[in-house]
């Protein structure tokens, strides 16, 4: 079978290129280097090719040197101080104790953790008994401390929660949220966007006004979302109330409540409403809710905040201004 002459030429050119590049990078033996120099002297095309490759190399090597931002070291420090990285003395200990002992210790530790988790879940179950609610978007979740990392327990009475948004247009929505956060002058507190591969995490700490303003902006892209779920932190550690198919208005209303109890009650009511609305074929309830039709809630006997909150009639004393305004919301954007 005849060989293709073009393929031979290409292969030969590739070999010459490899030699020339190794020559540029000073990666040839003395003999090879002399060989390449002879080639360059004899063949002007090869000499020209060498110059082209050298220029490519110079262009890349001339690119400005960028220095790592201070956040890198701070982040690493935080990890070391936070103790999420295993103890530094562990390897020495492992060496002394032997692999079998370490394995046994790990198994025992795992068993102890499972037992502890079981005991904790029983305790939490007793403290927060599950209510008879429809399946789906309403639930009180019991989670381990690790799995609720973004939603921190707050000492203050301000709103604290997590908003999980799913979208197939991740980049577009991400860009919108970032610009909404950047452009929003009402957000007086710190906003730290974190980026991890297919998900984006924004830790928003702001006033209620700031949150409302942000939610107004986010409302414009709400239709781009595949789902929106709000996790409202309760005062019991690791327990959250989940509102599926949540709207920006509902988030604002929940966050706007004065006390944690009211927020939880309202979140549960919205969860029930949203769940019903989702299960109806024509989504009549959703439309009615948005239209503010009060007769509907009576017709369906749906928990409205005014009916379920036993503190509504009692006027609460004014809370300190700082507490009123504290809002901590972790927005997780995922696909």
């Amino acid at each position, binding site marked *: 079978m005849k060989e293709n002459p073009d393929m031979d030429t290409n292969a030969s050119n*590739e070999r010459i*290129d490899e030699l020339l*590049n190794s020559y540029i990078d000073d990666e040839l033996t003395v003999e090879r280097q002399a060989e390449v120099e002879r080639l360059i002297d004899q063949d002007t095309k090869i000499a020209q090719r060498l*110059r082209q490759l050298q220029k490519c190399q*110079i262009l890349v*090597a*001339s690119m400005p040197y960028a220095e790592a931002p201070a956040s890198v070291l701070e982040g690493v420090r935080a990890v070391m101080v936070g103790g999420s990285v295993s103890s530094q003395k562990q390897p020495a200990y492992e060496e002394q104790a032997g692999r079998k002992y370490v394995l046994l210790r790990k198994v025992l530790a795992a068993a102890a953790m499972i037992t502890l988790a079981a005991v904790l879940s029983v305790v939490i179950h007793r403290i927060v008994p599950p209510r008879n609610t429809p399946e789906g978007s309403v639930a009180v979740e019991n989670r381990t401390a690790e799995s609720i990392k973004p939603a921190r327990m707050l000492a203050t009475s301000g709103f604290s929660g997590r908003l999980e948004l799913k979208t197939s247009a991740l980049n577009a929505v991400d860009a919108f949220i970032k610009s909404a956060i950047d452009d929003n002058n009402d957000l007086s507190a710190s906003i730290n*966007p974190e980026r991890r591969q297919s998900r984006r995490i924004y830790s928003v700490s702001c006033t209620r006004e700031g949150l409302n303003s942000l939610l107004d902006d986010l409302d414009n892209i709400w239709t781009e979302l595949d789902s929106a779920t709000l996790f409202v932190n309760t005062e019991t550690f690791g327990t959250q109330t989940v509102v599926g198919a949540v709207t920006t208005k509902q988030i604002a209303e929940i966050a706007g409540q004065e006390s944690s109890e009211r927020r939880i009650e309202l979140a549960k009511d919205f969860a029930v409403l949203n769940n019903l609305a989702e299960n109806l074929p024509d989504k009549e309830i959703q439309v009615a809710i948005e239209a503010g039709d009060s007769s509907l809630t009576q017709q369906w006997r749906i928990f409205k905040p005014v009916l379920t909150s036993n503190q509504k009639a009692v006027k609460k004393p004014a809370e300190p201004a700082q507490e009123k305004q504290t809002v901590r919301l972790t927005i997780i954007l995922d696909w």
Partner: protein
Amino acid sequence: MTEAANPDIRSRQVSNMRVINNDAMLIEQYRKGDSAAMERLVLKYQNRIYNVILKICADPDDAAELTQETFVKVIENLNKFEGRSGFYTWTFRIAVNLTLNYCQRNSRLAFRSLDAEQQQDDSQVKHVLKDFLSDDSAPDPATEVQNKELYKITARTLMGLDEAHRAVIVLRDIEGMSYARIAEVLDIELGTVRSRLSRARSKMRDILEAILR
């Protein structure tokens, strides 16, 4: 010239050995509980790691995040580090692997931004680039291109390469690694480094010519 015969390379090797010994000492100190030793290692390598990652992924935020993630992984896996390769090589291997995985997941984004920006080429910059490339005199390797716009075009040209080619060219031309070290970091054969680098530079040349057309 072999690495051993070249005095420059030999002195570099000696200084590398000092660095390796120094790194080993810091790792030992950290293992004994001195967290300041790890901070010194981070301070020592963070700029180089960040710079390489940034040149591969082209996004400062992501590069910072990936740099931090690299050191977190280093700390988490330090008990597995046996010292067969140097700490520097091992850390770069983690950094490059993380970055390449990131790039593969976000490749569509990179190409989209490249296409969009390609429309904005300034004719003056093209002129400068054309002059630089078509100048027939032998370039001085010590020459530094001092044109900001050219940096942008070079960065975009790099983004036009696939991740594997981009990584090899960045490790060689920006980090200045030897072929043997690149092979160790990328866990590939020396011959593969040679051919990959050669193809990467040829492709770069093609992209630059396409920009000029």
